[in-house]
């Protein structure tokens, strides 16, 4: 009998409360692991702030004190929030399986009835929570360097910020299968960072991109979420003002999420049948 002829392994646990517990437990372990590393504790809030100041100076020395109608630093702070969310996704969700292999816990993850997607989501959420102090630091430093925010609808701003993180998680899940299949999650994480910085308009407005790149950018949910975040925090836009933009973010997120869940479900069964996931 060949491997492909083996019966599909159907686990009893499907998305529900069990998976929720698994997500929370994985996020908790992720946070405990990172909190035990002094360099990570230093690096998490410091690196984004240094990068933010670097880009602020780049805009400053070239005489660009505004981007559109917003202050350049405000534009960059919102971009930095996107960068944090995206980095958390690629290094949290993307590296989830490789991290389990490295820690020697992959066998338990595979043997347990929980779904891989729940573990990957837990890593992603843990990474996002760990990055929250950096988010706060970026805002504080941004204000110190002259960022101006105009929030007329806190609800719209909060929803837009939430959308940034949800969009990142959906893209992360969509790429999750690829991260696992290639067994090169570190390389994938490194590779995926910079293009999204550019395409999502984190540091340069999207209308400055060549038109063909703008088309690619439109397909990314995170690009729309960042547009909404900027509109609500820098221009005082209301929920109805950004409804269309958030809708585009939601629609493209659903497409990424569906592709990700479908791919991970198939991958989950396949790797259990073959028993080769921990071969890195």
């Amino acid at each position: 009998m060949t491997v492909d002829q083996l019966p599909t392994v159907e686990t009893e646990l499907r998305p529900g409360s069990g998976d929720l517990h698994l997500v929370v437990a994985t996020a908790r372990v992720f946070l405990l692991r990172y909190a035990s590393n002094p360099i990570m504790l230093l690096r998490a809030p410091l690196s984004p702030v240094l990068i933010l100041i670097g880009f602020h100076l780049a805009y400053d020395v070239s005489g660009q004190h505004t981007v559109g109608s917003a202050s350049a630093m405000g534009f960059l702070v919102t971009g930095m929030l996107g960068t944090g969310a995206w980095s958390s996704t690629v290094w949290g969700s993307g590296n989830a399986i490789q991290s389990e292999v490295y820690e020697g816990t992959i066998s338990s993850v595979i043997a347990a009835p929980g779904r891989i997607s729940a573990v990957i989501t837990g890593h992603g959420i843990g990474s996002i929570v760990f990055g929250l102090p950096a988010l706060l630091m970026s805002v504080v430093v941004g204000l110190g360097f002259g960022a101006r925010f105009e929030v007329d609808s806190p609800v719209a701003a909060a929803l837009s910020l939430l959308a940034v993180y949800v969009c990142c998680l959906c893209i992360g899940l969509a790429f999750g299968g690829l991260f696992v299949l290639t067994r090169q999650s570190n390389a994938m994480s490194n590779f995926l960072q910079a293009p999204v910085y550019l395409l999502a308009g984190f540091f340069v407005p999207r209308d400055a991109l060549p038109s063909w790149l703008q088309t690619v950018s439109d397909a990314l949910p995170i690009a729309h979420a960042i547009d909404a975040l900027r509109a609500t925090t820098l221009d005082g836009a209301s929920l109805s003002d950004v409804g269309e933009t958030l809708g585009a973010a939601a629609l493209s997120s659903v497409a990424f999420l569906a592709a990700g869940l479908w791919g991970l479900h198939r991958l989950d069964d396949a790797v259990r049948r073959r028993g080769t996931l921990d071969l890195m």
Partner: protein
Amino acid sequence: MTSRTVTDNEVVAAAQATPVTFGPLGILRVVTGAARAIAKTRLQTSGLPFYLMVWLSYPVFSLLLVALIYRADPALRDYAIIGGAGMALLFGMQYNAGEILDGERQRGTLGNLFLSPAPRYSWLAGFQLFAVTESLVTATLGVGIGKAVFGLPLDIAPLTLVVTLVLFVAAMWGFAMIVGSLGVAIRDANQLSNLLFPLMQLVAGTLYPISLMPGWIQVPARCLPFGYGIQALADAVTSGATLSDVSSDLLPLAGFAVLLPALGVLAFRAVERRTRRAGALELV
């Protein structure tokens, strides 16, 4: 085959035996062998496509990013393209220095390297040869893309370029050795590099010349070699500057090129002594 028990005296005699000496050719062989081994390890670990993806994506996309930020200021854009090439050198050497040693330890081969009769600095030089080659290729590619896509004006002064590169690489080798030694000591070279790199990027003058930075950043920037090196590189590649034109940058850079490697060697020796005393070289 027969076997016999080795006596204590024989063990002591073997330890006190005259160490194998290596001539220049032998050392050269170790240097190139170590560089080749690291290159093969990289390619076999990640495969050519992923290797290329990782090492090319960051410099290429960073180049596009700065070119878009400075889209209305060609002079700053040209500087930042060369700064990006300098950053590729900085990035490659810094990450490789600690990461290669960390990798050797994780694979359990660092102890063997220390026990081998080859001079320590020969295989370390081999590791760095790989890092320098890799970084130079990336830097050259960055300048090539800058020329092809953004019309970077090239007016290269070969002598100034070579002298600058030699001094710049020597200074960065020393800096990378210091950071790498610290990374090996704390058993997390990669995270240490991740912690330090944004700070270096801020003060290195990769995005803008030191002279345009605000005063509070110029102070630390003037205390490090990177800004001098990148400014001299930019002048040598785009303005055809002679050695005397860039002497104000080359002189401090030359000082760093002497000082930092010496400090790097001392740092590495200190880490080696410490790990030998603790018997912790292979501990991950």
